[in-house]
């Protein structure tokens, strides 16, 4: 009787699974995208404060392994931080641990969210909202001091 088998309840790894989100701007099929997501070493990190620095991100995400690169998300117009970033690890296992233990915890007193990313491509560091920041900050109704105050639509009222 071999001693290498396992049990599916022990295989459960829900924190490291793919989410429902798929990047609509991705060039390629859904299948391609999911294939890349499943072997990716890159995480998208969201709900950052505009003031959170690369150094802070490096310190927190460095806890799950060696970081290859941090790419800060920028406002397309102002070229300033707009509250998201990409973290690329050398090893997928380190990225998985970040999904298991850093996702949903705090950075700069904010609960941050991580998700798998198919891989950085030039241009993806910019927000896709009409005003230059992230889409979520276009329509946001609440006041968020770390993300420029009210959402853009509200501000223009």
């Amino acid at each position, binding site marked *: 009787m071999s001693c290498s088998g396992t049990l599916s309840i022990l295989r459960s790894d829900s924190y490291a699974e*793919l989410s429902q989100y798929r990047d609509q701007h991705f060039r390629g099929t859904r299948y391609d995208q999911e294939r890349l997501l499943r072997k990716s070493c890159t995480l998208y990190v969201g709900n950052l404060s505009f003031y959170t620095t690369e150094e802070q991100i490096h310190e927190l995400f460095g806890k799950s392994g060696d970081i290859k690169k*941090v790419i800060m998300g920028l406002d397309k117009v102002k070229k300033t931080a707009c509250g998201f970033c990409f973290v690329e690890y050398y090893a997928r296992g380190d990225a998985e641990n970040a999904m298991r233990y850093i996702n949903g915890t705090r950075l700069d007193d904010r609960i941050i969210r991580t998700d798998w990313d198919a891989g950085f491509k030039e241009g993806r560091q910019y927000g896709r909202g009409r005003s230059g920041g992230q889409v979520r900050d276009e329509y946001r109704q609440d006041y968020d001091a770390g993300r420029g105050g009210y959402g853009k639509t509200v501000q223009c009222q």
Partner: protein
Amino acid sequence: MSRRRHSDDSDAGQPHKRRRTSEPSEIEERLESLICRVGEKSNSSLESNLEGLAGVLEADLPNYKSKILRILCTVARLLPEKLTVYTTLVGLLNARNYNFGGEFVEAMIRQLKECLKVNMYNEAVHLVRFLSDLVNCHVIAAPSMVAMFENFVSVTQEEDVPQVRCDWYMFAFLSSLPWVGKELYEKKDAEMDRLLSQTESYLKRRQKIHVPMLQVWTADKPHPQEEYLDCLWFQIQKLKKDRWQERHILRPYLAFDSVLCEALQHNLPPFTPPPHTEDSVYPMPRVIFRMFDYTDDPEGPVMPGSHSVERFVIEENLHCIIKSHWKERKTCAAQLLSYPGNNKIPLNYHIVELAQATEMLYMRLDTMNTTCVDRFINWFSHHLSNFQFRWSWEDWSDCLTQDLEKPKPKFVREVLEKCMRLSYHQRIIDIVPASFSVLSPANPVCIYKYGDESNRSLPGYTVALCLTIAIKNKASNDEIFSILKDVPNPNQDDDDGEGFTFNPLKIEVFVQTLLHLAAKSFSHSFSALAKFHEVFKTLAESDEGKLHVLRVVYEVWKNHPQMIAVLVDKMIRTQIVDCAAVANWIFSSELAHDFTRFYIWEILHSTIRKMNKHVLKIHKELEETKARLARQHKRRDSDDDDDDDDRSTDREDGPLEEQIERLQEKVESAQSEQKNLFLVIFQRFIMLLTEHLVRCETGGIDVFTPWYKSCIERLQQIFLQHHQIIQQYMVTLENLLFTAELDHHILAVFQQFCALQA
């Protein structure tokens, strides 16, 4: 709970995998799910669930016997925290179907032998315990279990085997006794007494040189840290004195006694422990870490004493829960908190009562092992960053009156530095009381020596200005070289025409200026390193050059240890400096002031890990290429019937064989570099420690300063953290570095390490 894949119908024509569920595998999943779930929260009692499941499985035996056997063996191995639930289940099945019980026992023995063969010792212990609890369920006859344990204990009589081998067999025997001691003693008391007496004499004669290296604290108060086998032996002795009455373990089989005692038992086949081989790797010894005792939760249920067997059982089970569910933090937490019997024990203290734990750990910092202090710093600062850095710092104001190198103020400084890294400088100034400002971290700003007009008399000042303008104007590497040509070499009278020999001033001017210009962020600095890689490589070609680059990096960024760490990492990865240079730099006199700071050791261990990963990577490449060649041969052999063309086979093999040869050389060279790195590190430790010891001896002062404690524990840390690699160098270390002439303080560390796997 089955995992649903994201199936998407909108994409045409791609090989999307759809799950084809055939009946048999569906049933197997259902069986596995039923078996794994039993014992979890349910509306019915555990007994009725077990009864029901036994009925279902009995009915499925004719068609799914081998699957059921496999699943039960796997849960025995992987779900030890539910051991008695599954032994009861097996007991019920055996009562209904004697043959199945026999086949299960045989399968378990096969699995046990297999585990021992492949060094899966932790899982083997679970199997042994399972078998022993099967005695309680009337599946296995007590005398045959005693016979197995007799064979285990007789391993201690084997000659020329590592102590850790004997330790394991002893541990497997002793750690099963909380479950089955009573039953075995009732049936075979004379044999058990003999076994226990043999145990006692083994434990008395085994060596314990390794223990000091593994202890968390250097003091024995308030809780002694015992070696794990010693602790277990005390617990078993007490259990025996209590007439084997064990009250903590959940024993569902008691409710089925009337059914089970009707069952026929099986005899375990005689079990010969597989012999020791070259490839055997046994578990390392441990020291039991205790922080709380019965005085710590006066209002709740009493915590079992440290020598009570209940303590052992609870700690084992909690460890198993964490090991099973580490990937699912919510599940793990829920399982820990819903531990069966949690109302009878102060569960929170067993898991850990956070604020009290922090306070206790802080109070005992003076005697805490440096590596453990590291972990405490990392954990506590990370914890604070999730709770708005709120802490009652005044409670720790006792550290303010102490020398800054003492453990408590040092701990607070390092914590504040880490907290700053997770936030920003002003935040830390704001959260600590004014009295703590002496422990606050420095503002992480860059120090540029050519920055001020007042420095214009410094050699290289004008070149620095020139460089600054050139870089801002997007100069190329060649332009930088030509600017640097004008820098005189303070070391040599003549350098060759190109001026590319080691010139510390050139390095200083270039590196200072570039890092200053790129100071804005990590990304800026990394871009700078990449853009001017050629210049770096040339300036740092020699060993002295590499060392000097590191020195200048430190001079510029000594206020920002995090920046130093990422720059060193990048420079190693882009081969501007090598690992040995970093090691030499860390032990250099320029860094003596920071030698006991945490960030230095993070850098060193990160460097060692990079070296190790590099060796593994090339090795993997070599193995993969060899496999490709083997496959190529196989393909050729299989379809090569008539063609005996030697030339074509050589041509095909050629490139791969060449590649293998090249990779072989690469592996050897990398392994040699790796060994050299460790030798350099050990050598420098020996030099540094010897210097200190000699100075103390001649000056008549006490050796045991805070610096010395830190340094000797850092040496231990190198051994423990990289023990697998270092094991390869034991002969060299013994003959070259850790010789008998060495001061006994230093030699002791090496001897303790040798004792770990002896």
